[in-house]
């Protein structure tokens, strides 16, 4: 006869197994493809902490694929779509591909998910203008996250050089040129050699949080901003909508860049240099003024300090132009774009996706995805997540999905952008710098740029304008009425008017222009 205690144990085990079995059956397989937040860190492994937590809390068995950036990622998504094999939930950065997938019926409308994730919807998807970026034929086809980190760029100045030369921070374009000239000619580093540059900028179209527009890239947008023509489009022109390159002030801004070049206050190699070259220059102590992000400052700080133990870097407010205009450039209040495949929605995975995203929005899910394992990777100090681990790789692996969670609020930014300390005890609060560049630079929200369809010959248009401007500012081409007219006339051969017309139609339809 079986002992009653054994029977009870067996019953308990059977019940537990049944419960666990039932739980296991409820777990939903979810394939998620995102651009890795920390591509330099190891990929999640089988015992991935974050994956285990997600399974336990949401019943989602997450299969995470890291998408490669750029054309490779687009090609991968395009191939998967052609094979009707798209992941259940994925990120998309190429908006042309996004609209193409909508037209092909590969992605599902997501409106039905909003009610299933009320907190996330309230926090992220309530802005009609931003939702306009993902609407097609009255349907919402994507979850457009707000930008969590934008306008982190600015013009940095060597405050120690400024003080040494007894100068004031520039506030106008003329003052900027004077300071740049002094930084170039008056040996601010005191090494007896003329080896410093007034302003360091490169042609760079990195779009991390900013929209550079056509032309010379974001390192010179502040010049165009000073003439009231930053970015590609003139939103305020109403029916006379046109590209800024048509505006006479665009030429004046170009002439100012030419003045910087002629005054030899820029590195002679600037037109062919890459961002990494520029970063080397300022870290070496060669640049008095330069365009940089707070992220770039953190990344290069150690090197800068090793070379310039007494160096002092600050942001300066963007200089004003002759008519008082000022803007560091334009930005889009749009971050990650999440899309659900039609296949996943048809398979009934919508509720699991909503549950997972809602969990990632706040509380435990938010901290786990954004900062890692509490106690091991970070602690909360006065409500600010503070990194404590020395296992950098482990923490970065745990936070590979952090763009699903980040919200750009003050506590988060303070956690991400802490204090840099010099060897002599001085410190720089990067969060304050970030707030400073946001507040003082008159950034212009041009999220609408994202709905403008690329021209069929977009690469030709970009190259023509960029190369022409480089020729103008380098003096390889005279900058006068005739040459400027020849330049703008050349746009006709590229059907630039058609590009403008399509842009206007798209912006008007999206409510971005009147």
């Amino acid at each position: 006869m079986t002992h009653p205690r054994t029977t009870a144990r067996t019953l308990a085990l059977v019940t537990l197994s049944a419960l666990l079995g039932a739980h296991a059956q409820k777990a939903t397989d979810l394939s998620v493809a995102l651009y890795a937040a920390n591509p330099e860190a190891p990929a999640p492994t089988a015992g991935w902490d974050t994956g285990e937590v997600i399974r336990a809390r949401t019943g989602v068995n997450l299969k995470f694929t890291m998408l490669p950036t750029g054309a490779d990622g687009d090609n991968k998504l395009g191939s998967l779509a052609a094979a009707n094999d798209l992941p259940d939930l994925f990120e998309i950065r190429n908006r042309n591909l996004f609209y193409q997938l909508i037209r092909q019926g590969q992605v599902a409308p997501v409106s039905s998910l909003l009610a299933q994730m009320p907190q996330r919807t309230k926090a992220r998807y309530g802005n009609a203008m931003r939702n306009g970026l993902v609407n097609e034929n009255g349907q919402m086809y994507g979850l457009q996250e707000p930008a969590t980190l934008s306008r982190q760029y600015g013009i940095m100045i060597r405050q120690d050089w400024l003080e040494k030369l007894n100068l004031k921070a520039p506030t106008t374009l003329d003052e900027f040129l004077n300071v740049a000239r002094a930084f170039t000619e008056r040996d601010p580093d005191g090494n007896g050699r003329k080896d410093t540059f007034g302003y360091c900028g490169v042609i760079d179209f990195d779009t991390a949080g900013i929209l550079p527009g056509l032309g010379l890239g974001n390192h010179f947008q502040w010049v165009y901003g000073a003439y009231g023509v930053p970015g590609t489009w003139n939103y305020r022109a109403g029916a006379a909508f046109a590209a800024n390159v048509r505006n006479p002030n665009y030429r004046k801004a170009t002439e100012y860049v030419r003045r910087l070049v002629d005054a030899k206050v820029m590195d002679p190699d600037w037109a062919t240099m890459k961002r990494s070259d520029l970063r080397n220059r300022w870290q070496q102590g060669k640049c008095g003024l330069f365009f940089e992000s707070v992220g770039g400052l953190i990344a290069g700080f150690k090197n800068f300090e090793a070379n310039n133990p007494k160096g002092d870097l600050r942001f300066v407010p963007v200089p004003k132009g002759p008519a008082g205009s000022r803007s560091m450039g334009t930005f889009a209040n749009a971050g990650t774009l999440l899309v659900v495949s039609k296949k996943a929605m048809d398979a009934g995975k919508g509720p699991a996706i909503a549950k997972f995203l809602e969990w990632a929005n706040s509380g435990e899910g938010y901290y786990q995805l954004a900062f890692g394992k509490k106690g091991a990777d970070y602690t909360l100090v006065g409500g600010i997540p503070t990194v404590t681990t020395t296992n950098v790789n482990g923490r970065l692996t745990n936070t590979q999905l952090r763009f699903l969670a980040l919200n750009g609020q003050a506590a988060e930014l303070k956690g991400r952008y802490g204090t840099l300390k010099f060897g002599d005890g001085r410190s720089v609060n990067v969060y304050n710098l970030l707030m400073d560049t946001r507040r003082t630079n008159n950034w212009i929200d041009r999220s609408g740029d994202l709905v403008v369809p690329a021209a069929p010959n977009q690469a030709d248009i970009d190259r023509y304008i960029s190369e022409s401007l480089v020729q103008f500012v380098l003096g390889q081409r005279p900058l006068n009425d005739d040459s400027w007219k020849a330049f703008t006339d050349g746009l006709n051969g590229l059907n630039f008017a058609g590009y403008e017309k399509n842009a206007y139609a798209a912006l008007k339809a999206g409510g971005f222009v009147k």
Partner: protein
Amino acid sequence: MTRTRHDRTFDRSVNAFLIAVLLITLIPLIYVLAVSITPLGRTPSLLPTAASLAAYAELLKQPALIRALGNSVFLTLSGVLISMILTVCTAYPLSRPDLPGRKFLTGVILFTFLFNAGLIPLYLVIRDLHLLNTYWALLLHGAVSVYNLLVMKNFFQNLPESLEEAAKIDGATDLQVLWHIVLPLSKPILLTIGLFYAVTQWNSFFEPVLYLSDARMMPLPVVLRDILTGLNSAEYVESAATTTAPPDALKMAAVVLTTIPMLLVYPWIQRYFTSGTLSGGVKG
């Protein structure tokens, strides 16, 4: 034969030109190496005044890179093995004049060299064979290169027929002839084609990105690109805060680490290289 002054001048010009070409080729490589050993706080230059292996130490601490290195070594070794077996087994019969339908088969193979279905049909085939997210997708797809196959076939064709006939008179089977006679005589072409396959597998980038979804399975070029992308990113903050080497040194060190295995292999087979490609390249 008497060498005239004109000949000597010509030789010297050729040597000077080749030295110039060598320098042009070598200088970027030296620069890559120099930047990779530049310590924090120093300007990268062709001839560095100080050296540090911090970038290498930093990279070798990254488990992702080590794992990817292992994946690439595995894929290269197994890929070369599979490709060589398949190529030899296809090239040898095609090189025999008595193979029925030889011209037709060669034509069919050549057709795939000139025309192919493209990316998406290939993806569909890999998917329907359930090879997605397995290394078989990388090893089997493109296991036989038509170009390499034809070069090897031509090499086999140029071997003296009498050797084979002698072996057959001694009672050797076709496989025995291949194993004991043909392959030992074909060392140059085997090593040359093996190197071609090895380099292709070692550099394979887009196929892993397309066919693999598990990031742990990714080979070195994919992970290397991720690291470089990360280093270039404006978001590169958390890791940079702990780094002891300049970002450019990290990038270049990654390039050097990837190149070293191929640089080590090449000198061992370099002496076979010319004879391998030359003999195999002759039309037959």
